[in-house]
């Protein structure tokens, strides 16, 4: 038995759910990484996480009226992005509060829709399946939808790129230069809402938050250049997702009953390990470079 067969259990690449999982997770990891770099720089992780829960209410509402869950997810998230921006205040504290209020109301509706769904239509609620979604249960027919939505989000970010970067790094300068700050802010929030909808509905809310925040935060530890950070974050995201899928697949082959570790847990654990290990080089570098280091304006102040 050669080494590769020990690391990669047989049947990994020929397995249909695994193939779908590899493709879907790669697309969502890249989209999440691109959007997530700005989320981390702007300090909007809470909004990014909230959208996965808010969308859950939309999805269960959509199931209730017989519509596509994805449609409900996206609609409610875009609406929530609008409300957040409307009551949102520029300072991070006020923004988090606005996010919290919208999230609180959405969770209330989630409770209602779940109750109605289990009472009147006897379908199991979308919220829990979205919270703990599994990559291995993604239908292959969803791949085109994921690809189109992902491409749309990437296009939106590409259009917003320069003004978004400027408002994210230096708000005052952007205001002085006449950048339409509110427009850029709402545009970005919509991109975030779409990206989170895309990832939550396919791979679950846990993974959505992990892939949105983890790889970008890891990348911003390693580099301060936004372009490089986006590339590194995408690579880290895809690597974490594929490594997690492999671990989950392997654990299923090892155990007697084929009940492996859930793929969401495996990917989250890998993301977390990446993030924690990324803080070692910066700590070492700090010690080596010592006091003659140029004072660099950090994007992620510790």
């Amino acid at each position, binding site marked *: 038995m050669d080494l590769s067969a020990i690391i990669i259990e047989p049947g990994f690449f020929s397995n249909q759910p695994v193939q779908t999982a590899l493709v879907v997770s790669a697309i969502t990891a890249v989209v999440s990484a691109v959007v997530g770099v700005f989320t981390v720089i702007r300090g909007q992780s809470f909004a990014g996480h909230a959208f996965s829960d808010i969308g859950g209410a939309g999805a269960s509402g959509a199931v209730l009226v017989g519509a596509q869950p994805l449609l409900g997810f996206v609609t409610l998230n875009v609406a929530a992005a609008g409300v957040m921006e409307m009551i949102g205040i520029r300072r991070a504290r006020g923004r988090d509060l606005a996010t919290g209020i919208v999230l609180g109301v959405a969770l209330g509706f989630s409770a209602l829709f779940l109750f109605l769904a289990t009472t009147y239509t006897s379908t199991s609620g979308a919220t829990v399946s979205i919270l703990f979604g599994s990559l291995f249960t993604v239908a292959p027919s969803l791949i085109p939808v994921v690809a189109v939505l992902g491409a749309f989000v990437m296009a939106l970010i590409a259009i917003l790129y320069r003004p978004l970067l400027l408002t994210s790094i230096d708000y005052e300068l952007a205001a002085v230069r006449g950048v339409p700050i509110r427009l850029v802010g709402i545009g970005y929030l919509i991109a975030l809402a779409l990206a989170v909808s895309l990832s939550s509905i396919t791979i679950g809310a846990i993974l959505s938050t992990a892939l949105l925040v983890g790889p970008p935060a890891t990348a911003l530890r390693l580099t301060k250049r936004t372009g490089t950070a986006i590339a590194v974050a995408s690579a880290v995201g895809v690597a974490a997702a594929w490594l997690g899928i492999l671990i989950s697949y392997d654990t299923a082959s090892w155990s007697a009953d084929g009940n492996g570790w859930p793929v969401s847990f495996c990917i989250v654990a890998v993301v977390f390990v990446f993030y924690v290990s990324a*803080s070692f080089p910066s700590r070492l570098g700090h010690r080596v470079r010592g006091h003659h280091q140029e004072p660099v304006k950090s994007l992620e102040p510790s």
Partner: protein
Amino acid sequence: MFETFMINAFETSAIVAIVSGVVGFFTVLRGAAFAAHAIPNGAFAGAAGASLLGISKLVGLGVFALVGAVLIAALGRRSRSDVATALTVALLLGLGDLFLSRSEEYSAQVFALLFGDILGVASYQIVPTALLGLACILVILMLYRPLLLSSVVPDVAEARGISPRWMDLAFLIILALVTTMAVPIVGAFLIFSLLIGPAAAARAFTDRPLPAMVMSSCIALVVVWAAIAVSYTTNLPVGFFVGSFSGLCYGLGRGWAIWGDRLRMSGRPAG
């Protein structure tokens, strides 16, 4: 409306509402909405783990809430707090996923932990709830001045020798206590609504800490009791009413604040 189980519901929810009103005041003041969402959500995983080990759910909740609080504080030392919080909640929920996949827990119990089970509160739950609530209030009383100072003017607090890092950890541990108290009663999602909505509404009416705290507790109490009563008569879930009433209170508070600003503006002499 006043059968035994309803009396239990009114009593325990009153404790939860009053304590979360006080803690909510600090949550809103510190802008810690994300932590207030993350710790209850992460602690939910602890309950799943506890049922796997066959120990009390309250212990599992408490341990995971504390782990969450310490993890957020530890990661937050070297990165932005929102990044630390997001990674913590993802990691804890991932663990929850792992625990749930190992056990035969059916989803009804998952629902109860997420959305609460106010009407199903048993009499034996009142005592632990009251004790945990009391512990919360005691910790806040002990730390009242430094906590308030570091929340409002962190720089001044630091100059006076109050470490912002320790205050952060202390506050997160208070949140962990509230979580342990409230999740078995109102669920992981709704304790968040109760922490944010009433306190944010109260701040629109007054800037002074004590009146704001009292008011936030009162609003939380009214919200929960009204939600239970309406839920009883309409047969719809309590969570829906808690969430929407909290949001409504916030909306009223904002409206009041905007209206007050207008009045002051128009009252100002021209020129």
